[in-house]
């Protein structure tokens, strides 16, 4: 690790610009709200000099909106930096490698965090039970509410955690060493455990955080144990070393296989794959909506980066079926079916979205199983990874968008029952329509981006397997008997998508048909509205037309870089 420190020069700084920005943001966040008028007596004299840290804070750096502004600014800059320097490539030390692929994920993480920060701008009270002022309140009430909000230490804590999550995730995407990968993963995970528990306004917030932490740490321990087994087997955790050792492996070395299997458990928890998903619905519904959105998009993407590295870089055999293929395929089917069935029976919109997130993990795992089947040529494999990465990217728009809408409802203490969504279109036409767009995109209706990614994943599975079908058969049964079993993963995705339509449309339709419980509009929250609107618009733009083509090109070239094509 020491080489990271010795290598730092301007080029490296540029390579790591988004991360450095986030680091500076954390430092700023710690410093600025603590600046005060404290003075210190110079020893042995009577002279007092101001030392800035401590004492009474001024009106400006005590402002509850300040941490949020800093966080939004920093994340916005980091997002910009990751877009501008998308094509940069280079090594940092011997544990990090920056390329298009990792930068694409930095882009994903920072945009998700930016959305979370935007959504939190008006709704993070200083004390758990304090509420932000409403537009309708009288001046006195506004003053008392602002007084409750005035101490910004809680906001500082929250936004520092957001930035550390981002830092961990972003570094994790560029790790070339399993150990580094795990450390960064834990940095992000530990921050997110606290973020989940941060929602003390909700009765279930603390419980959710605790559950998520307990399960998460057990699973991490399992993963680290698996990693230690790998170290025992190979003597190095560098992924390139591991990959060459794996392909040189004679027969099946139980040490290596058990190690990889245990690591799959840890990453499976991160992506929310059944049967490791059991903490997911509780965590999502207990956390505040922006954090739930973060878990459903950025945290899931982080898990998938780890899985892609582990499965496709380290343990992919040069030819033939990968050893993990069957288990991933089974987990995929189990995950999507379980997620959808559970979502069908749920009445809490946040739980529905949580289970839908589980189901989406199932679709992506199914696509990855197709790569491991050994039937895919490199370009097909690259296409399938493109589909998965594209799906993760656009998921930020419509999954997070849906959580943002719920976050608006949460600001008035609602959003935990499906009844809270009743008549939303009548109360707030634009927000309601945006939510409808998110639901359709989650369900995978053309021309929204959710369809495009699902089509690519199904296409991947079909093009790997369907060629094996008996072409001249006369009945469907004959034909189906002849295809590779992998084909049934595509059928499973289609059937599950049809199943999922029921609960997505249920949310969509109650917004149109049922009478709202109150006729008043929601809180103004302009930044949040802007974020929701942007998400809905981009969901459409990335679904059809030149923008989607551009994104597909970017993802394809990034994936080709990663796969070494």
């Amino acid at each position, binding site marked *: 690790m020491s080489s990271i420190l010795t290598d730092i020069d301007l080029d490296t700084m540029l390579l790591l610009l988004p991360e450095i920005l986030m680091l500076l943001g954390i430092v700023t966040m710690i410093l600025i709200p603590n600046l005060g008028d404290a003075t210190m007596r110079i020893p042995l004299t009577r002279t007092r000099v101001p030392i800035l840290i401590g004492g009474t804070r001024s009106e400006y750096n005590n402002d509850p909106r300040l941490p949020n502004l800093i966080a939004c600014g920093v994340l916005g800059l980091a997002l910009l930096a990751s877009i501008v320097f998308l094509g940069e490539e280079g090594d940092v030390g011997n544990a990090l490698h920056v390329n298009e692929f990792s930068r694409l994920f930095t882009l994903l993480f920072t945009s998700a965090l930016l959305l979370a920060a935007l959504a939190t701008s008006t709704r993070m009270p200083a004390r758990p039970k304090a509420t932000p002022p409403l537009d309708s309140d009288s001046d006195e009430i506004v003053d008392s509410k602002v007084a409750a909000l005035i101490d910004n230490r809680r906001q500082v804590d929250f936004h520092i955690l957001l930035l550390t999550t981002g830092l961990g995730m972003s570094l994790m995407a560029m790790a070339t060493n399993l150990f580094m990968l795990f450390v960064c993963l834990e940095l992000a995970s530990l921050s997110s455990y606290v973020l989940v528990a941060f929602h003390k306004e909700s009765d279930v917030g603390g419980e959710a955080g605790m559950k998520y932490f307990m399960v998460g740490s057990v699973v991490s321990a399992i993963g680290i144990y698996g990693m230690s087994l790998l170290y025992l087997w190979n003597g190095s955790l560098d992924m390139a070393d591991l990959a060459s050792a794996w392909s040189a492996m004679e027969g099946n070395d139980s040490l290596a296989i058990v190690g990889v299997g245990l690591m799959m458990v840890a990453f499976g928890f991160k992506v929310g794959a059944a049967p490791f998903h059991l903490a997911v619905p509780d965590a999502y519904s207990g956390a505040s909506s922006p954090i739930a959105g973060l878990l459903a998009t950025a945290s899931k993407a982080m898990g998938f980066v780890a899985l892609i590295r582990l499965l496709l870089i380290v343990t992919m055999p040069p030819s033939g079926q990968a050893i993990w293929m069957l288990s991933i395929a089974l987990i995929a089917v189990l995950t999507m079916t379980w997620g959808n069935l559970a979502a069908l029976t749920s009445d809490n919109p946040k739980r529905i979205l949580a289970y839908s997130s589980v189901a989406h993990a199932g679709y992506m795992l199914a696509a990855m199983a197709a790569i491991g089947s050994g039937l895919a040529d490199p370009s097909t494999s690259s296409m399938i990874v493109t589909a998965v990465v594209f799906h993760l990217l656009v998921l930020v728009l419509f999954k997070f968008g849906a959580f943002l809408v719920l976050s608006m409802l949460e600001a008035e203490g609602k959003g935990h029952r499906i009844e809270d969504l009743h008549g939303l279109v009548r109360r707030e036409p634009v927000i309601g329509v945006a939510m409808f767009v998110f639901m359709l995109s989650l369900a995978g209706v053309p021309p929204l981006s959710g369809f495009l990614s699902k089509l690519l994943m199904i296409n991947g599975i079909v093009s790997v397997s369907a060629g094996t079908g008996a072409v001249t*058969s006369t009945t469907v049964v004959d*034909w189906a008997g002849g295809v590779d079993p992998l084909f049934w993963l595509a059928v499973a995705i289609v059937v599950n998508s049809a199943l999922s*339509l029921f609960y997505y449309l249920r949310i969509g339709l109650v917004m149109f048909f049922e009478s709202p419980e109150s006729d008043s509009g929601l809180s103004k929250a302009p930044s949040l509205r802007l974020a929701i609107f942007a998400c809905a618009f981009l969901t459409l733009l990335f679904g*059809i037309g030149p923008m989607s083509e551009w994104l597909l090109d970017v993802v*394809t070239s990034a994936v080709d870089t990663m796969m070494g094509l």
Partner: protein
Amino acid sequence: MITLLPLFAGLLMLILTQVLPNTQAEGMARISRNISMGIALAVAVITTLLFIGHWGSIDWTNITQGGYVLQNDAIDLIPSIGVTWKVGADALSFPMIWLTTVLIPISMLVEWNAKRGHLFHPLLLVMEGALLGVFVVLDLFVFYVFWELTLIPMFLLILMWGGEDRRYAAMKFFIYTFAASVIMLVGILVMYFHTDPIAGLGSLTGHHFDLVAMTAQNNLIPSEGLRHLVWLMLLIGFATKMPSVPVHTWLPDAHVQAPTAGSMLLAGVMLKMGAYGFLRVAVTIFPESTIEFIPLLLVLGMASLVYGAWVCMGQTNLKRMVAYSSVSHMGLIFLGIATMQPLGIAGALFMMFAHGIISPLLFAVAGAFKHHYHTLEIGSMRGIAHHSPWLAAHMMLGWMASLGLPLLAGFVAEVAIMIAFWMTFGWLVLLPALTLIITAVYYLSSMQRTIFESNDPEKGILPDTMHDEEPRDITWHENAGMLVLAAMTVLFGIMPFIFWDMMSDWSSGFTVETLIDAMHSQEWMP
């Protein structure tokens, strides 16, 4: 690009009226109504000019060779998965395009004073864009997008301007058609996965959605069983839209609850989307499966025809009755296609067109009846002719046309289908023919009861819902809309060749190029 003009103009106006504060939005009604009407009229004029300028000089018989007129170069939308913006019109789609562009201004006119006009008329414009999209695009992805897009304005029209039971009707409409089109989407995807790569398209997936290339590709789905399955999936999607028995039950509810303009468009154009899509996709790409499933088509068509007609007789609600008569006429379209004769297919095409004029007329009449007499019950009043002579005249003409009176548009289609049916299936023709006669009896009797008969020739019997209101005749804008429709009914009854020629040319070409080979391979002879 003409397609997108109404769509975007309508959307823009909708957004504008949403953004404006409420007081100004109401003031927008007049302006947005005029702009919408202007755009709709302009589009109608453009298509009419295209038609006058083009007919006769174009050989409408080429279809598989990509003989689409008005075809622009394809614009890439998502080339890496093979989606392009490719539009074109041929004799199959052009009458429908023209019908759409003409019906939209008429339905705007009929509901000129709709409540919340700042939303109503732009919404109709969005509807026009979506419908035109369905008929012109030659790319299945975009086709599906427009297909679903037509749902949304219609759904909102029913939900926001409908009758008492509108929520139930809108929900049923949405769920039926959406579920069916999802099944259709699966079918389209299976087709997609069987396409061969073509240059410049599908660099990522190796497949494309290009309908013309799919049609040209020999034996798109080699496995016969899978091909039949896909054909059935497509049939479910299209038949639900048409709608055919047994998936027709959404139609009467939607019609009864929908506002007049909504009903007119629903019956006039949206139902035709089903028949159009069926011919354009299912029959054109899988003629062998179509021939294999002729018995199924016969059963569906016959069931729709007979069941629709019989249920129609039991109705006392005017709109419900017209709705079931639509089901019945859509059954005839299936029968026409099932004959596999150029004459039968041309008859089906003409039925699509004729029904697209007659049923909007009937729904406009029903809407005006509801508007002025506050009821839709057929038996509740007698002697409209006395109070509302114009309404009575339109009602009469509409019903006459619907039951197939010679010299009116419906007759041509029915006769063509019957003859072709006789040529193919012989004496089986008695069943549809007799059904038509029975319907005529019922139509005539309810016409007599409603329009003429009354104990007191001066007053007639007014429905209770009128209370003491003085009965009036229809307003000028309702009358103007209906007059245009009535004039078209007569025009296309006397001079069917205006569209018949291109339709029969297309059908012969289609039979020769697509169906004959399939008939040989399936050893099926009419």
